[in-house]
């Protein structure tokens, strides 16, 4: 195991496992790649700072690999757009005769789609111009960001849930199920309990956490006591949770009495997360909780005795046990904490602005997306936050891309999956871009431990 960034003095000094040791968080590497530049103690003639920076940038470090993975995913996405558009495809039938047609048609299609993706998630110049000349309010300018943050908030939680478990050597595929049970309890607390505002919200949020904790505890205890593999059990529990949700929604007292379809009563307003920028923008306090959770998980992992145990168990359970750390207890705690985070993500889905009542699809894909977010964030808390923001932006922009360019929202799923695939196989990215031999020794997301 070599230190990935020896010169930078490795800003992160608690690499928990091979996977993470070889990688720095997105943010960290940015720092690392800049701080590596000034190296006073080098005896050789010093190359220029800029040169060194460029060299470093083109080396296969985490930051570069992440960026290039994004590029590759976007390229593959563009190809998919082109081959699935009969009109554009038609221009390729006479590409030898008039190549400009094919290129301009493709360019128009792709650039418009991605422009809409950007406008829908970050910044829309037209809205800005409109605000300047008074044709629309400031809300329209902030709307894309608001959407991005709204989508990102639950993903932060589920991403952290998966990342935390990863660091402890467990692969929690059950964030989806934990979020489902979380959303159920949060909603039930939200419309069944008559509580004053404030307290009601707190209780509902905690109920969501409790639900997730319960659903995380089951695979945790099965792993600890019976050695049952958590991957299998969490997959199975996802479905159990989903069926439980679909059953529960149509029960008396839960189902909306005014409706015949599968939808529950709505959560009381006293239990809803307050909106941050007025009623016209969807962004709500969930994103603040998410940042708080990120900080808490970072502290837990790196600055607490529990985190020490968790990382030790994750990296080498035998040595941890020999040093007196209870591996079973740690496994159970990891799954409970992971479940709490996923459950909080679930409660975001019904207490925030995305929905206020239970439906069979109320948690969407946040659990599965959380796996991708965790991997993209290199299983580090702040990395997860950034990754969730990116995924939130893709979701938000994807909506606009769908309605303005007619590009199906599914493209976002494709992009997300592709990004993570490329990130997981840096060797492939390196080969495609002919990167210099990696300074970061072995970039791998592999935890390979099998069943």
């Amino acid at each position, binding site marked *: *195991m*070599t*230190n990935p960034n020896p010169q930078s*003095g*490795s800003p992160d*000094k*608690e*690499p*928990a*496992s*091979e996977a*993470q*040791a070889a990688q720095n968080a997105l943010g960290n590497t940015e720092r690392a790649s800049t701080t590596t530049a000034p190296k006073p103690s080098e005896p050789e003639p010093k190359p220029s700072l800029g040169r060194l920076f460029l060299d470093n940038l083109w080396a296969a470090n985490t930051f570069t690999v992440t960026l290039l993975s994004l590029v590759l995913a976007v390229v593959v996405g563009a190809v998919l757009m082109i081959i699935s558009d009969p009109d554009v495809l038609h221009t390729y039938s006479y590409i030898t005769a008039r190549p400009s047609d094919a290129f301009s048609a493709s360019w128009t299609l792709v650039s418009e789609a991605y422009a809409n993706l950007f406008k829908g998630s970050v910044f829309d110049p037209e809205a800005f111009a409109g605000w300047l000349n008074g044709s629309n309010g400031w809300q329209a300018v902030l709307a894309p960001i608001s959407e991005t943050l709204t989508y990102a908030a639950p993903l932060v939680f589920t991403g952290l849930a998966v990342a935390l478990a990863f660091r402890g050597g467990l692969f929690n595929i059950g964030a989806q199920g934990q979020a489902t049970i979380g959303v159920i309890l949060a909603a039930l607390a939200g419309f069944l309990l008559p509580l004053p505002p404030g307290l009601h919200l707190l209780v509902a949020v905690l109920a969501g956490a409790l639900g997730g904790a319960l659903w995380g505890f089951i695979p945790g205890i099965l792993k600890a006591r019976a050695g049952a593999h958590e991957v299998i059990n969490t997959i199975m529990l996802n479905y159990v949770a989903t069926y439980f949700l679909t059953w529960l929604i149509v029960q008396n007292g839960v189902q909306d009495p005014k409706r015949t379809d599968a939808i529950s009563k709505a959560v009381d307003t006293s239990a809803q997360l307050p909106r941050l920028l007025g009623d016209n923008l969807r962004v709500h306090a969930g994103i603040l909780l998410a940042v708080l959770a990120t900080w808490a998980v970072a502290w837990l992992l*790196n*600055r*607490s*005795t*529990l*985190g*020490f*145990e968790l*990382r*030790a168990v994750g*990296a*080498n359970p*035998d*040595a*941890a*046990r*020999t*040093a*007196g*750390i*209870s591996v079973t207890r740690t496994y159970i705690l990891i799954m409970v904490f992971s479940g709490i985070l996923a459950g909080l993500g679930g409660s975001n889905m019904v207490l925030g602005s995305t929905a206020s009542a239970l439906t069979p699809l109320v948690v969407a894909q946040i659990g599965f997306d959380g796996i991708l977010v965790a991997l993209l964030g290199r299983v580090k808390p702040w990395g997860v936050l950034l990754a969730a923001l990116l995924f939130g932006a893709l979701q938000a922009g994807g909506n606009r891309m769908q309605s303005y360019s007619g590009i199906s929202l599914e493209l976002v799923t494709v992009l997300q999956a592709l990004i993570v695939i490329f990130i997981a196989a840096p060797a492939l990215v390196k080969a495609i871009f002919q990167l210099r031999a990696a300074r970061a020794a072995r970039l791998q997301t592999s935890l390979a431990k099998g069943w």
Partner: protein
Amino acid sequence: MNVLYGLYQPDEGEILVDGKPLKLKGPSDAIGAGIGMVHQHFMLVPVFTVAENIMLGAEQTRGGIAGFLDRRRARREVAEVSERYNLRVDPDAVIEDLPVGIQQRVEIVKALTRDVDLLILDEPTAVLTPQETEELLTVMRSLKAAGKSIVFITHKLGEVKAIADRITVIRRGKTVGTASPEASRDELAALMVGRNVRLTVDKSPATPGDPVLEVAGLVVDDDRQIRAVDGVDLTVRAGEVLGVAGVQGNGQTELIEAIMGLRPVLAGTVSLAGDRIDGWKTKKVLRAGVGYVPEDRSVDGLVKEFSVAENLVLDIYDRPPFGAGLALKPDAITSSAKERIEQFDVRTSSADAPVGTLSGGNQQKVIVARELSRPLKLFIAAQPTRGVDVGSIEFIHSRIVHERDVGTAVVVVSSELDEVIGLADRIAVMYRGRIIGVVGPDTPREEIGLLMAGISPDAAAATDGGPATDAGSASEDEA
């Protein structure tokens, strides 16, 4: 040897077989050239039968392209080879149910059915009882008589002298010399280690105090739920080193793990300074003043991805000054680590370097430093110098003796007899889960060697050196 067998590619140089250069792209080329190998870690599929293991890679099939296995023919082949070399194995037994001695026999049969002329045996006796070793040597003699060549790799000088016709000593990837079997042990040992090794450790006579560790009637199972420790009684006093000698796999590991609370105690008691500690959790045992150096540092001793500093507090991270409540104190951890690194002469680039980047000797020093940094009543070191360079060995030995001199009870478990003799004030020899004898360090090596083989001196006298009564019962079992 893995190069010879085609598993690794040589960087340079060539291999000649019968005078002709040979290019090995993989093991199948080696097998084709008549080279067979019995690996130190058996290359047998545990859930397969003997016949399936022997067939694999050289399957006899029927039915053309479908390739149905011809099991009958495989059985017959096994039977033939077994008969010819007197290596009895049941072709239908499943490997994981067989004792190691028989598994090794399967390995040899496997090589022989492939018509090899040269058989490489890589440390074959490491896992064998003396009885099984004797059988193996007999087999090797009969193979030699049948015209096969054998390369026998071992670090046990006695075996080399007993069987070899020519001896080549390899150290650090280079041939350092050749010798005939008549060469003395000391000569061979000197060739192996490169200089005349001092096997003695400087130490004054012990001044034992009160009993610290008392073990009575201890019974422990191994991972496969087979009895590993079968009624052990032991007492270790303050200020003495008890050496535990024995061929590996005779229950030493399980004995220590049971004392440490890492393995359930099925019967008997363990007391530390008068307190019953059996049934305690490992953490409680450690906190009660027990230091423990596990035998396999990379598996049990260190978290390789953790920094040196973190590894130095691996079992006290939650105690002041390193942890307060739920919070960890990184500054205290780092500053204490710097002290320890100094004190124990750990060669590392920094306290923050991952411990996996250190050499074996320095890794071991990290463990020793960790365990000796708190007040101890009992210090247990299992294989404290395995895979460690000579300089570190001397350092670690001197720390162990120093710990004894300040009044700690010390247990040293080692399969290196010389290490035990050098360090111990008393030597307990383990054989098949029991303490077969406790002797002084001045006891002749030969006598201890006999004990390790399960022959207690009285019995030896009575049966004129024949095998002990219960020896070999497992290896004789036909599955």
